[in-house]
């Protein structure tokens, strides 16, 4: 359009905000990940303050940077197993989620039209209530003297209470429960958009119901499947609250390890290195996700 107005201000303000409060912090995290832990305030070295120490002194301190924190990530088995088990837990719960969410999303998309907004609202509603509350709700259900066990015991199905809380099983349940809307909504929007006459056409051309699903419905819902999987997988890898509250001491996930490194051990450089490594692990799925979103937007 024309250059006579000051449109650039509209983008400069949020741009600047995100640069200062999102982009630069990552550079700082990276810097600190190369530092050594100290018992001081701040608890790492080197620190830079060219206005106090002068520039040459500041540059000289660059030599103090160390890759020790990164080397530890590979050597110390707690880190390696944290990464592996995070990816394993997040990945397998994403797959399980797909099996739970798909029928639900399908049922919503094929429900009578007047019902659909209500159903969508019903999926979103728990999402509006606190994440913490939803995780917390499971503690009283899954604990040894909790509702599930007392119900199963009184029905005579089991004789001994099941140990679910403080195990990985509880972590899976927590992830499945908390992230369900993230999977259902993209699936629903992909399925709902789909023209029902496509399935009629497939059937008209000789497909059975099941064939029509696998040959028409499912391939067309793939963008929703991809978006949903990444929306669940990426945050689940770095999840802290669920493994912390529902998992046991043997549940190691990277978000929890980082939190403990930071708050319990006060080892900021190690926590930073864990964060940077996690970011690198997640970089590829994040980029795939953004690509998928951009493509969707171009089409829609």
């Amino acid at each position, binding site marked *: 359009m024309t250059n006579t107005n000051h449109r650039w201000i509209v983008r400069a303000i949020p741009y600047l905000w995100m640069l200062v409060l*999102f982009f630069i912090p990552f550079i700082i995290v990276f810097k600190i990940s190369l530092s050594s832990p100290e018992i001081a305030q701040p608890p790492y070295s080197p620190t830079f303050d060219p206005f106090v120490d002068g520039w040459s002194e500041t540059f000289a301190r660059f030599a103090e940077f160390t890759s020790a924190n990164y080397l530890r990530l590979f050597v110390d088995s707690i880190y390696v197993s944290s990464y592996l088990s995070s990816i394993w837990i997040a990945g397998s719960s994403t797959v399980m989620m797909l099996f739970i969410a798909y029928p639900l999303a399908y*049922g919503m998309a094929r429900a009578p039209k007047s019902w659909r907004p209500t159903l969508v609202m019903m999926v979103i509603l728990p999402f509006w209530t606190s994440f*913490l509350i939803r995780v917390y709700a499971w503690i*009283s*259900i899954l604990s040894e003297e909790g*509702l599930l066990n007392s119900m199963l015991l009184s029905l005579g199905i089991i004789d001994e209470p099941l140990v679910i809380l403080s195990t990985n099983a509880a972590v899976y349940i927590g992830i499945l429960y908390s992230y369900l809307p993230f999977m259902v909504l993209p699936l629903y929007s992909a399925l709902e958009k789909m023209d029902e006459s496509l399935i009629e056409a497939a059937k008209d051309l000789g497909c059975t119901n099941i064939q029509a699903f696998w040959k028409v419905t499912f391939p067309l819902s793939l963008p929703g499947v991809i978006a949903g999987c990444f929306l669940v997988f990426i945050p689940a890898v770095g*999840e802290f609250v669920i493994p912390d509250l529902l998992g046991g001491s043997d549940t190691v996930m990277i978000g929890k390890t980082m939190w403990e490194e930071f708050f319990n051990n006060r080892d900021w450089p190690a926590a930073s290195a864990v964060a940077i490594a996690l970011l690198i692990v997640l970089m590829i799925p*994040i980029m795939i996700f953004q690509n998928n979103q951009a493509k969707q937007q171009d089409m829609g």
Partner: protein
Amino acid sequence: MKRFSTFNAVSLTAGFAFLYLPILLLILYSFNAGRSVAVWGGWSTKWYASVFSNQQLLDAAWITLKVAFLSASVATILGTMAALALARHGRFAGRTLFSGMVYAPLVMPEVITGLSLLLLFVSINVDRGFWTIVLAHITFTMCFVAVVVQSRLVSFDRSIEEAALDLGCTPFMTFFRITLPLILPAVISSWMLAFTLSLDDLVISSFTTGPGATTLPMKIYSDVRLGVKPEINAVCSMMVAVVTVTVIIASIMTKRQEVERERAERLAQTKS
């Protein structure tokens, strides 16, 4: 298709039971007279009474509301600007980085966002507390605002804005007279989203807080770590109730608007 098929009815029922049962149980047991989470000891509202006499909880709730209100309001303005930039400014310099920064926080694990913001605040030597939480919350919620508003702007016929310009309206006034009234529902719902996200946040608040600023999720978290308390059930039930009522009222209002609009459209068709 007019009715639910059996398969759909079953999957919907099972899915929604999974979603709602835990919350319903939580609410039910907030009225439990006994301390146990599994044994029903009769109806009581004593835990609600004890919430209102717990000054720490009330303080935390008040701080949380203030943080959420402030951060949601600023995030709505910034996020709307970001959405305008993404949807209306074409290819500007640095657009890729900008859209990357807007989308990344949506999926970024909170521990990373929290840690990075904390280290920023430490390295520029700001006193951490209420305001650093607000800044952090603005940063991550504005991205959600931007995405919601942008998707509304993309589905919006641009020629309506062009028509206003064509009729002599300045670009600045066009935004306030045409664009904003039309995207207002999306802006309001993105404010609500930002508000609840902020209300809800534990991890980022924990990293960016300082002495004296404990939010409700932080308080709940530290209490829960010490064991389940019926008092917390009561707090949680109240939060659920507030959110549910708000969302239902909002959706009834939009639904009524839609119904009125549909009726008007039918009227127009019969008369023309």
